[in-house]
């Protein structure tokens, strides 16, 4: 007997959502392990976002300038 289109859709929904969850669960596990390893063996390598005031001022000036000229 032919499976109806709707039945195919239901199967696809179940398998699809299942795959999405399985994939993202594996990714969660992978990321957690990776982070644990990274923090253990390479500590102190966190991002430093250097934002001295001078650069901020120039950034703002340039942004203003660009907005001004782009028009």
């Amino acid at each position, binding site marked *: 007997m032919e499976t*109806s*289109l*709707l039945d*195919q*859709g*239901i199967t*696809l*929904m179940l*398998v*699809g*959502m299942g*795959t*999405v*969850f*399985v*994939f*993202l*669960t*594996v*990714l*969660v596990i*992978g*990321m*957690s392990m*990776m*982070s644990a390893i*990274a*923090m253990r063996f*390479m500590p102190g*390598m*966190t*991002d430093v976002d250097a934002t001295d005031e001078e650069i901020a001022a120039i950034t703002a000036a340039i942004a203003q300038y660009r907005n001004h000229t782009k028009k």
Partner: protein
Amino acid sequence: MDLIRQIWTESGIYQISGGQIAMIAVCLLLLYLGIVKKFEPLLLVTIGFGGLLSNIPGVEIATGNGLLHLAYEVGIETGAFPLIIFMGVGALTDFGPLLANPKTLFLGAAAQFGIFATLLGALGLTQLGLMDFSLREAAAIGIIGGADGPTAIYVAGKLAPHLLGAIAVAAYSYMALVPLIQPPIMRLLTTEAERQIEMVQLREVSKVERVVFPLLLLLLVALLLPSAAPLLGMLCFGNLMRECGVVDRLSDTTQNALINIVTIFLGLAVGSKLGAEQFLDWSTLSILILGMVAFSIGTASGLLMGKLMNRLSSTPINPLIGAAGVSAVPMAARVANKVGLEANPQNILLMHAMGPNVAGVIGSAVAAGIMIMFAS
């Protein structure tokens, strides 16, 4: 006299059809939404103008050797434009919030229910005899629920190119309407107390994690779901260029000149699918309705997953950030932040919502991979 008659018979006034007039009105509406309402202007302005050009009677722009049709053939039929945009999105995306709190990936997963529910809805309409969508068409329509423009265009180009115009317009329109669609659903499904929940500050993420993440994601895709590899691979490539710190000039160009150039031609090429004969069809109307349903279900399932995780988790989770799982980066995260602020003026959810927000991009691409695998 013959020449004057020729000018007359080749003029737009003589040739224009009612459908073309209607489509010009639709395209002016898209331009209005983009320019005046500032809804997703990068795409609505380019798609809208492309649509205007495509409805000029009697001239080869969106057909044959016309520029818009060439852009469609070169960039959409091959899938190149959405993939390059995805590379640019990767170069523009900060996966830090997701790395700081990987659990939010589940919110991005839950919100993909909108995709599959809509697929089912489209097949239901067919079962009821109201429409006549094939499985491929239903899958392409469902992907609107992913709230991710390039993914929707990529899948539609592969599975149902004749519906691409309607699907792209629906996807970008609803992404634009996120600030109107989501808040009522958010208020309906969450309690005031839940919306007030403050979350703990995210930890700092190291450079090593940032660099390894795109490679990890790519390897998992390669091992588990190769059909999602083109989309996620280009996303990872863009993100690796961004984070590795040694190819800043490539990352810079990817985030600017390259993504801008491709956006212009992607928009025009999608606009070439807004010709009256193709667009003015009952299927377009169903697609618009189904797309709205998809968005609402995706938002709701993200919220419900947020409520569930809040119960199970040791640290508090504000369910509102679940709504950001539909993608629509970064608008959905901003909406979650805004609704959170209304309930509790101290409640800054923005960075917390960016996690599920980018998770939604990955989730949709995974769903797209499954669709492409089965439906093609």
